[in-house]
C-alpha cells in the first residue's frame, strides 16, 4: 500500500519538477526584465540610437514642439590665432514653434550635435571671439528655461568648433531625454 503511494508521489514529483524546469525558461527572462526594465528605460534615454530622418525644410514634431532646421553657417572674421589650428567655427540654426510648453521636462538633456560621415560627433562648445547672438536667439537649454509659451516661434542657435576638413559634410542631430532612443537627423 505504502509503496503505491510512494510511487504515485514520485511520479507526481517528477512531473512537477519537469514543469518547474520548463517554467524557468520563462521565469528567468521575465524576472530579469521586470527587475531591470526601469534601468533599461532610463539607459536608452541617454544615447541617440534610432535616427528619424528629416528632409531639408521639413518641420518635425519632437519633444512636443515643431522643429525646422535652418542651416549651418561658417563664422568669418575671427582674428586668426584665437582659434586652434585647422578649426572652423560653425553655427547651427533652428526655428521652433513651441507646442507643449512643459519644456523643462520635455527638453531635458537636449543635445544638438554635429556628426560627420565617419560617425564622429561634436557637441556645442564655446568659440573664442565669436560675436554674441542677436537678442532673442538662444540655445536649446536656455530656451527650455525661458518660459516660452505655446505657439511662440523661437530661433535656436548652437556654436561649434570643428576640424576644417569635415566642415562641409556635417549633419546636425537633435536628441532629448523625453524622445530617445529616437532622435532627429536633419538633411543639410
Amino acid at each position, binding site marked *: 500500500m505504502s509503496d503505491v503511494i510512494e510511487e504515485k508521489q514520485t511520479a507526481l514529483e517528477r512531473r512537477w519538477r519537469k514543469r518547474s524546469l520548463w517554467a524557468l525558461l520563462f521565469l528567468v527572462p521575465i524576472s530579469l526584465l521586470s527587475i531591470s526594465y526601469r534601468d533599461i528605460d532610463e539607459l536608452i534615454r541617454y544615447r541617440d540610437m534610432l535616427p528619424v530622418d528629416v528632409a531639408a525644410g521639413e518641420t518635425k514634431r519632437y519633444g512636443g514642439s515643431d522643429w525646422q532646421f535652418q542651416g549651418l553657417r561658417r563664422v568669418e572674421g575671427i582674428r586668426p590665432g584665437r582659434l*586652434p*589650428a*585647422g*578649426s572652423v567655427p560653425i553655427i547651427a540654426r533652428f526655428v521652433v514653434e513651441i507646442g507643449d510648453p512643459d519644456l523643462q521636462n520635455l527638453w531635458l538633456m537636449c543635445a544638438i*550635435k554635429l556628426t560627420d560621415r565617419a*560617425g*564622429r*560627433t*561634436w*557637441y556645442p*562648445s564655446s568659440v573664442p571671439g565669436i560675436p554674441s547672438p542677436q537678442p532673442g536667439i538662444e540655445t536649446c537649454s536656455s530656451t527650455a528655461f525661458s518660459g516660452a509659451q505655446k505657439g511662440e516661434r523661437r530661433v535656436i542657435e548652437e556654436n561649434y*568648433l*570643428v*576640424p576644417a*576638413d*569635415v566642415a562641409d559634410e556635417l549633419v546636425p542631430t537633435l536628441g532629448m531625454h523625453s524622445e530617445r532612443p529616437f532622435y532627429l537627423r536633419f538633411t543639410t
Partner: protein
Amino acid sequence: MRRLANILALILAVAVLYGMQQTKPRFGELTAPIPVYGKMHDRVHTREFDVTLDQVVFARQLDFTRYGEKKTLTTSGLWVIVTAQLAATTSSTSVAAATWLGPTGLKFTTSGRIGWAPGMPPHLLAPGLPKKVRFIFETMPDQVNGATLVLSGKVEPALDSEARISIDDLKTFNDGQPLVIDSYDPLRPLTGT
C-alpha cells in the same frame, strides 16, 4: 543512503554559498575603471580620448604673472609639470581627472593652487582637434621614480577605460634623483595646437 546524500548535498551547497559570499567582488571592484597601460611618448588609446605624454618637468617653485600681478608658489615638496597631447576619439569629451600615482601607491591629484587658467584641466576635447595641455601636481621627491600618471574622463570612472602611463623618461642625475629646475611658468603658452 538517500538521507545521507541529501545531507552531503546540503553541506556542499552551504560551502559553495559561503565561498561565493566570501569572494564576492565589491561594487567598486565590479565597476572599476579598465586600465590601458602605456609609456611616455606613446599614443595611449582609451575609449573616449587619445593621450601622448610628452614631457615631465620638476620645479621648486612656480612663477607667473596674472592680471598684472606676480605670483610665486613654493612647495616643501616638488612641483611636477606634465605636458601631454590629448585628442577626442569619436565624440566631444573632456579629461577631468588626472592623478600622479607614486611608487608606494600615494595618489596626488592636480594642484588647485594655481586657480583657473587657460590650459588647465578640465580639458575640453573635440574629435580631430588635438590639444597640448598641462597637468600640474605637487608631490614629494620620493614619489617620483616609478610613478604613474592616471588619466580619465570623469573623476570617478566606472567601467570606462583609464590611461595609466608609466613615467619612464626622466632627466635624472647619476644617483637617480630627478633634475629639478628652480622655476617654471605654468601660464606660458604651449607651442603647437
